[in-house]
């Protein structure tokens, strides 16, 4: 039995199994349904920890003993996804049995189209998976207050978790897309049924926006699929395909395999950097020659055909990158695709806001990191300048827009937009030299995603706590909550400071790492781009402080006789918020806890991208 397959699949499908289990609960047992769902999310968390332990053990087994600055050992290059995928293919070819401890699981699913049930884990997805399972667990605790259609709510909630986890685990583009869509529908209903007064509008807006993006992803997915990748696929696959057509020329190979597609994309980038026609010919010839050693001799016509490879054309990369980017940018969200977010957040019930801000936004960043950048690196590099500008607009615009809000939840929603801008900024600062700093940026972006997952979920929860008592969210009508609710006030202050990026709390780490990398960014046309961006980013720190402190002042400070007798935060609410608060502190003080197992693969991504001929 392949352990990692079992673990990862269990992790994905346990929530669904529990959702099915909910069907057997009779009416009137709402309390048990909640407990059942809570147990489901807890079990998922436990299994994600098993996956993590496996993954960590794998990193420990494959450590590079040569690279030891300051006496620290780092994970070996053989733990990178691409290396593991190749090794797994070799192992399978040799022994017929898949290896069960490499964090990869790969089985044919729809053979006709080469679609596979292909799951895999590396630092990037592992971090996201852990964040997901933790936040779903905590959001389930926060869901106790939901009274309407509890069974339906819990089922949709659990199915949503399956969708999200599947998206993070999938290494097959098709599988990814399916989970991506699976996630969409529960969210629509969760906002549309359990939301606030304008829930239908918000739900439809959310749905249409995301669907709009999904269409672009679908186009890109198909475009990749219809590209022949036989020059890059493992020789076993090619041999099998050729055997199938029985000598009627060579078979075309189409794939949804993200790891393979990334390899193709990188080769395409290599090729596009070549100067002359002759060099390009030589380059293709080399690919063909390599194949030749493995099977029938190739004709000059084959070389010509490969010169026409879609991946080798800048236009293809541009268009595909933009398609993917738009699809994922809507999720992040990037200006100007962001307006679904304030509405969806405001109308969604508290736990769903937590999920939305804490996890669903990260899917966008994850998609960019996992799909858009590796497959279309050339376009990503060429467009880096514009991506940075978009990110900067996000940061500044979000901060200013947040400042002008009077709805508490909307303010937090806009702060999310601003903070997610740092994620894109960290990813986008592809410099001309000194890639070290880009690695900081990428790691910072990943860290920012985790930190924002914690802080924004916490912020939304804090808003939810007060909304349950005051039944409004108008910032101008609060004041003075600190006196009746000191514990709540203190925890909120902590969470909001984490959002503000106060050192010692999680929000600071990612932001700082991203800003550190920004100064170094430059393009041949804009040698000072990074400096301007970094200065703007540094100045936004002031705006962020201003709107968060102003909010704290308007909500918690001062006096207000109307709220004099409010009950402080309840034990159930404490159970939900305390883990977030602790995470916010621990991740702020010891980023190494996350970085040590996440960094090898994020930096590995940077390495694999910049090792291309620049």
């Amino acid at each position, binding site marked *: 039995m392949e352990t990692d397959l079992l673990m990862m699949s269990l992790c994905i499908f346990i929530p669904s199994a529990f959702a099915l289990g909910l069907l057997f609960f009779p009416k009137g047992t709402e309390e048990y349904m909640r407990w059942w769902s809570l147990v489901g999310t807890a079990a998922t968390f436990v299994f994600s920890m098993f996956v993590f332990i496996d993954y960590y053990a794998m990193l420990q087994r494959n450590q590079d003993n040569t690279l030891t*600055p*300051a006496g620290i050992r780092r994970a070996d290059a053989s733990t990178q996804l691409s290396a593991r995928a190749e090794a797994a293919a070799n192992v399978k070819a040799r022994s017929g049995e898949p290896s069960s401890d490499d964090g990869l699981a790969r089985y044919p699913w729809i053979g006709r189209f080469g679609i596979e049930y292909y799951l895999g884990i590396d630092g990037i997805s592992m971090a996201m998976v852990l964040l997901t399972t933790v936040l779903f667990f905590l959001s389930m605790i926060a869901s106790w207050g939901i009274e309407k259609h509890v069974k339906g709510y819990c089922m949709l909630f659990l199915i949503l978790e399956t969708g999200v986890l599947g998206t993070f685990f999938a290494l097959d583009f098709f599988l990814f897309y399916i989970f991506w869509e699976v996630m969409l529908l529960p969210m629509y209903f969760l906002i549309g049924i359990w939301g606030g007064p304008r829930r239908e509008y918000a739900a439809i807006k959310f749905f249409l926006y995301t669907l709009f993006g999904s269409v672009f992803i679908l186009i890109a997915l198909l475009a990749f699929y219809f590209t022949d990748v036989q020059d890059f696929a493992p020789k076993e696959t090619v041999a099998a395909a050729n055997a199938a057509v029985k000598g009627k020329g060579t078979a075309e190979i189409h794939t949804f395999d993200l790891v393979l597609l990334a390899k193709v994309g990188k080769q395409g980038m290599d090729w596009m950097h070549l100067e002359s026609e002759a060099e390009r010919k030589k380059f293709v010839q080399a690919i063909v020659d390599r194949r030749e050693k493995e099977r029938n001799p190739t004709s000059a016509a084959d070389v010509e055909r490969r010169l026409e490879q879609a991946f080798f054309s800048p236009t293809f990369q541009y268009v595909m990158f933009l398609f993917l980017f738009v699809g994922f940018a809507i999720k992040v969200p990037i200006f100007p695709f*962001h307006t679904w977010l304030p509405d969806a957040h405001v109308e969604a019930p508290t736990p769903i806001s937590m999920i939305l801000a804490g996890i669903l936004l990260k899917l966008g960043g994850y998609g960019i990191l996992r799909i858009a950048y590796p497959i279309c690196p050339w376009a990503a590099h060429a467009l880096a300048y514009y991506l940075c500008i978009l990110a900067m607009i996000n940061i500044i615009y979000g901060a200013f827009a947040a400042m002008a809000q009077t709805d508490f939840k909307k303010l937090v929603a806009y702060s999310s937009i601003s903070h997610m801008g740092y994620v894109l900024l960290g990813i986008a600062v592809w410099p001309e030299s000194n890639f070290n700093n880009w690695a900081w940026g990428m790691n910072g972006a990943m860290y920012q995603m985790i930190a924002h997952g914690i802080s924004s979920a916490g912020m939304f929860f804090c808003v939810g706590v007060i909304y349950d008592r005051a039944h409004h969210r108008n910032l101008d009508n609060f004041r003075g909550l600190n006196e009746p609710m000191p514990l709540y006030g203190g925890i909120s202050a902590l969470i909001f400071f984490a959002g503000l990026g106060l050192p010692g709390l999680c929000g600071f780490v990612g932001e700082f790492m991203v800003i550190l990398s*920004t100064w170094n960014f430059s393009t041949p046309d804009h040698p000072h781009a990074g400096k301007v961006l970094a200065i703007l980013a540094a100045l936004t720190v002031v705006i962020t402080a201003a709107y968060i402190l102003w909010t704290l002042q308007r909500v918690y400070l001062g006096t207000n006789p109307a709220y004099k007798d409010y009950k*402080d935060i309840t034990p159930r609410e404490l159970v939900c918020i305390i883990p977030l608060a602790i995470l916010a502190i621990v991740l702020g003080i010891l980023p190494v806890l996350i*970085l040590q197992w996440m960094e090898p693969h994020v930096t590995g991504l*940077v390495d694999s991208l910049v090792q291309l001929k620049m």
Partner: protein
Amino acid sequence: MPENELQPGLLFVVATLLPIASFTILLLWGAIRWALRPYASDNATVKTIFEGLGGAVPGQAPAYVATAAIGLAFLCSFAGFCIFLAEVGEMHELKHKLDHAKLHPGHHDDHDHDKNEKAKHNEQKVDKAKDAKGEEKKKVDAAKQAPRNLQGEYNALKNRWEGAWDWARVFPKSTHDSARGSILQIGFRIDMLAAVMFVMVTFIATLIHLFSIGYMSDELQKEVEDHEVHTAHGHYHRRGRFGRFFMFLSLFCFSMLNLILADNLFQIFVSWELVGICSFLLIGFYFERTSASNAANKAFITNRIGDAGFIIGLLIFWTYFGTFNFQEIFARVRAPEADSHGAIKLGKESAGHKIVRGNLVKKYPDGSASIKVENGVGDVAFIFPRETPGHFDAPRLGREKYAYHDPAPTQYGYIPYWLLIVGGLGIFLGCVGKSAQFPLQVWLPDAMEGPTPVSALIHAATMVAAGVYLVGRCYPLFTVEVLLTIAYVGAITLFVAASIAVVMTDIKKVLAYSTVSQLGYMMLALGVGGWTAGLLHLLTHAFFKALLFLGSGSVIYGCHHQQDMLKMGGLYPKMKITALTMLMGVLAIAGTPFFSGWYSKDEILAGAFGFFMVNKHHFLLFLLPLVTAGITTFYMFRMWFMTFTGKPRDEHVYDHAHESPWPMTVPLILLAILSVGVAWGWPPHEPSHSWLGHQLHHYSQPKTVEFGDLVDDHGHGIPVDVDFVAENRSALENHAIVGFLALGVVGIGLAFALVLYYYGVLDPEDAKEQFPGVHRFLMNKWCFDEFYSAALVRPALQIAHWCRNVDTYAIDGFLNLVGHWTVLTSAWSGRFDRGIIDGSVNLLADVSYAIGSWLRNVQTGYLRSYILFLALAAMGVWILLYAWASALGAP
């Protein structure tokens, strides 16, 4: 040094961690107590725990925890300081030897004898200081026989006082140097400055904790009445928050100590922000008051403006140096003293510890460039190798040198000179924010909304001093241009603040502006090359300003939270200890001879004068501080006279005034003693012979400032620096003249104060009426708030509004328009559907229906008719079949 031996430097780390431990304890304590509160009435066990944790009424225990923590921290740092004092001499000697050996290879045995003598001497001191040092002695004895490994010894000694831990790391393979710029560390490094600061901060903090136990005793009540907050039902009532106050104080102490402990810019930045947030929390301690929460926000946001500059500085240094560690940055930005040829020379002049500039000749694609070194001019500055390669060639005048834009540890790099300036200015902007310098000084007076001990600790003695401390720390990073900016900012600040302090009537506001003004002095001193003078003033000022603030706190406490000096007067007989100790503080800040302020201020003025003598067009840098020295004396005595002498202005206040209890007066007395004597030296009449100043100067002053082997008549090193040789020499020569000038000015200020406020010969109201415009301008604090409100706050809010409107009207408007159009289009297509497509289908249906309903008549429901139809139909079929058959011709 054996690895398992404890580093004495860890004493300082422990001192730093004690307050955060206290903070954590108090936080959990308070949180659990509050969380149990609602359940205490239902459950006996919970009730027991609740009562055990202090029950409903705030108790004094939190104060004891916090005070014990900071007291212990003081003991730790004091012990650490003593050990450090014992070892620093040897360390310094070794370093000197090392440098000498590098500069003159082959000659390094010359000083050996002398060296050993010194070492012995030091050893004796060590023995006196601590018995545990015996092992060290053995080592030195052993070293006498064996050939000396200077570097090894030095490193061993140095390692006792520094350490670092990784905080975040990234290892890309693509960089040629995997170690470079990949690690953010937190660490500690103790030098004389840090050690002295540690003792100062922990000592003052301990006293202020003690003082607060008395001052904050109101908070011990179950319900506190806040006189400043009015509600519909009279004054506002709230729970007492005694514990919370001490919790915040502990957090602050941790942040501040961590800032001093740091061996890198990053850690300083972290503490910097933490200090800011503590300041936010403590200014907003009475958060029910709108003024307090506004002041807290203002303080933090203003500080963040400075921090934005700080971040920019950090970015520049990170990008070019790849590290935040002070020692590494300094080693990279300033030329080492020696290369493989003995010494680094640019032309005739020695280039040791200089920023070396040159012009780019050509850039190469691999990132390297050839740089021609001219005589101190050029677009780029050299970045020197961190790890000196075996053969190390310094850049020489007029020759080309290869350097890399992105240097490895053993390569030269280069940084555009303007970026070095921008980076320095950025760091300085951070200091401007934190130290409330012009133009970001606006937050400090507002910060007086916090409780008075907070004002004393944070907004006078420590946090605001952090800016000055950082300038002192980063000194080698600053180019001449940056230093000049610092000097001017300091000069402007000290004058502006002093001028405002003259008209303030709130006792704490006067002190606040005097703090701003004194911080300006420190900045000025640093800017004109008086490193020691500036930092010495930082230390002395901390004592007397803490004293003054605590004194004012005692007055305010005695007068039942009356802060307005117009309601005081004649309080001397009522609170003698407070009055006398405050007088000590006033005398110290005025720069009266033999009081601590005199030592530092005199040196500052001398430094400014020296600078002015060399650079005549910068006369303001001397004139402003000189005049302000008089103004300072005037407003400080004005404050003292208005408070303690003359007739009581408000009988009610006077009648209730009383001396404060011992926890408040004891700190006052201790601080008064130190305000007088902290800077003493021998002989006391020579301000430049202050013991503290000497320690700072000798052991901690950066090499940029101190250079060369100039010795004065007494055999002491003269503070002569590379960048400020002539200035400092001139300062030394004119020290006496400046001293007399300053005394004169102080005398004039005192005379004015006596005339106006003590003897009442002239009525200060007359002056007010004579120059109403000036008075209003000063009362409005030079209109900075109004200016910022118009220039920054309102535009920011306006932009925020625009952004929101762009969202609602532009983007959502566009989307809704698209949605609207879609709906419209679908309405039309719906009409088409219904009219034409559905219409035709419906027509068919209608026709069938009509036929059906006509045919329905046949269904009569009568059995007979059905049978008739049946029969008829059968007949009909038969006839048809028959007709068909016959038509076919069948028979």
